[in-house]
């Protein structure tokens, strides 16, 4: 077993452990911190996959913005004690069965796919993959339209979020 494999197993174990702790803890701040651990583990996976740029984005966007937003939301809604004492709803048993069934199904399905057995990646020919990515986003026969639409979506989400969360007086 090579070093990278050991690193992968360690990181993978951490991600799954952190994910499980996140969904099963009753203290929401702990949940949010476990989420950060899981997200950080995914960033390490991106490094292992030689997608360094995505790893940076993962840390900046997911940990730097999304996870922090989550912690804010936890703080702002901490009056809801009820959901802390009874953390799961009455369908939790079914949810566990469905989750296990889904995992089983996905692995069975994927296992029948020949390329599932691929052991080593192809070589990356490009000298500068980050440059390729940037060019893909600005070239009209690349991904310009999604790039622009994503910014429109972010703007709309921004406006919608401010509107929904803005405190207002009765009757307004």
């Amino acid at each position: 077993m090579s070093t990278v494999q050991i690193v992968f197993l360690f990181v993978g174990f951490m991600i799954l452990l952190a994910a499980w702790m996140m969904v099963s803890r009753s203290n929401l701040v702990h949940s949010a911190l476990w989420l950060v651990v899981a997200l950080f583990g995914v960033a390490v996976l991106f490094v292992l996959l030689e997608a360094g740029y995505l790893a940076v984005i993962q840390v900046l966007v997911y940990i730097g913005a999304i996870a922090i937003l989550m912690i804010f939301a936890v703080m702002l809604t901490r009056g809801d004690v009820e959901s802390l004492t009874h953390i799961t709803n009455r369908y939790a048993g079914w949810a566990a069965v469905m989750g296990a069934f889904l995992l089983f199904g996905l692995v069975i399905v994927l296992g029948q796919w020949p390329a599932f057995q691929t052991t080593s990646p192809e070589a990356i020919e490009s000298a500068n993959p980050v440059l390729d990515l940037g060019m893909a986003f600005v070239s009209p026969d690349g991904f310009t339209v999604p790039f622009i639409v994503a910014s429109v979506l972010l703007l709309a989400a921004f406006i919608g979020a401010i509107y929904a969360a803005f405190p207002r007086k009765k009757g307004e």
Partner: protein
Amino acid sequence: MIGSISSEMILAILPEIVLLALVAVIFVVDLVVSDERRGMLATITAVGLLLTLVLTALFSRPGPEAVLLWGGMLRHDWLAFIFKIIFLVGALLTTIFTIGWEPIWRKGEFYVLLLTSTIGMTLVGASGDLIMLFLAIETTSIPLYVMAGFLTRDDKSNEAGFKYLLFGAMMTAVMLYGFSLLYGFTGTTNIYELTTAIGAGEIPAAVLVGAAVLVLIGFGFKVAMAPLHFWAPDVYEGAPTPVTAFLSTASKAAGFAALTRVMVAAFPSITLEWTTLVAIGAALSMTLGNLIALSQTNIKRLLAYSSVAHAGYALLGVAAASELGVASVVYYFLVYVVTNMAAFGAIIVVYRVVGSDEIADYAGLHRRQPLLGLVLLLAFLSLAGIPPMGGFFAKILVFAAAVEAGLIWLAVLGVLNAIIGLYYYLIVLKVMYVGESKDADKPLPVLRPHSAGLVVSVVALLVLGFVFGPFYQWAVSSASALF
């Protein structure tokens, strides 16, 4: 290295460009206009949408051959074009019916969200790539979550937005997992290259069915296909009625645009499997939707279940997976958008005066405002599929498509369901025409823009019934763009 932009590429996204410019105009007007005159925001949006509609119809028509533009992101074909028209009509009528609806029509935010959602829809209809499609679906849905919960002080609206968001986010993740598998299996995100890659035959059918099921779950949620319809009644009931109207027409049509394009284009090798799944979904949607609608007392909830049933009828056309099938789906939505808009428009008018959505409060409506009664009568008869309304031909077409594809059991079930449907539509009409009410002699004023919206929808609905030919031709040419 960077390609150039041709005029054809610009014309293909003309509606999106104009809508985006309209968003900018709304921003500026919202900033400068005084509080009392804010009502003009709705008018500006309506005029802008009408302009977009005209410009699209004049300049954005596709040629006879479908082309992939913008690096394969968008496909400029008749299917995309007709669905764009459907979405723009839906957005226009929604805007008209928001006029006078406090406090929505004084909020620039609402129209910005509405227009962004419309941009998302027009792109859903034209997407030729999984990345574009995913992004377009989210651009449609995320503003809709806020719009459903737009009345932030109203508990029901709040709850509607919240539920829609939670279910929507989860189903999106499931659909996205399906997309990621499709990308992995084929090595491409272009929907039209997927087919070639799958056709090469390296991928076992079972694997492909797994991905198709995940994708179908996502689309099924968006169109409220049973058993993934559970969100629809609550969201439809709680959301402000103009938003409900938009959700049940344009948003549903967007789901169908994506469904037909992706399933037909990407999965021809497992047609039997996915059409069977869609057929089961159609059967469940029609039956559940109609049976539960029978016992509803709130008209918005009734129309929510009726819209689940209508998704079921339209799914018959998808399950047929043939040219006639796709043409019938397109025709179905041409009719359904104006029909449902007419029905919801009438509900909005009644709510403004009566302040209730209970069916019991519609008693004596016919005497209070005969023309409004007539609008509801025509809309409900069209929903029930009575000739010569547009709804009749739409139903005939989907049933014909199902029979042609050998799904005779499904067509028979559809006809039985249409009879059940007739029953609950007639109950509402009975309350309206025969029911006694102490308010029966009080007048029921209708705002001028609302009457214009109602007249346009009803005329369109009658035209689609009487002048069947040219619109059917449209539907056929859009279907042939897929095969």
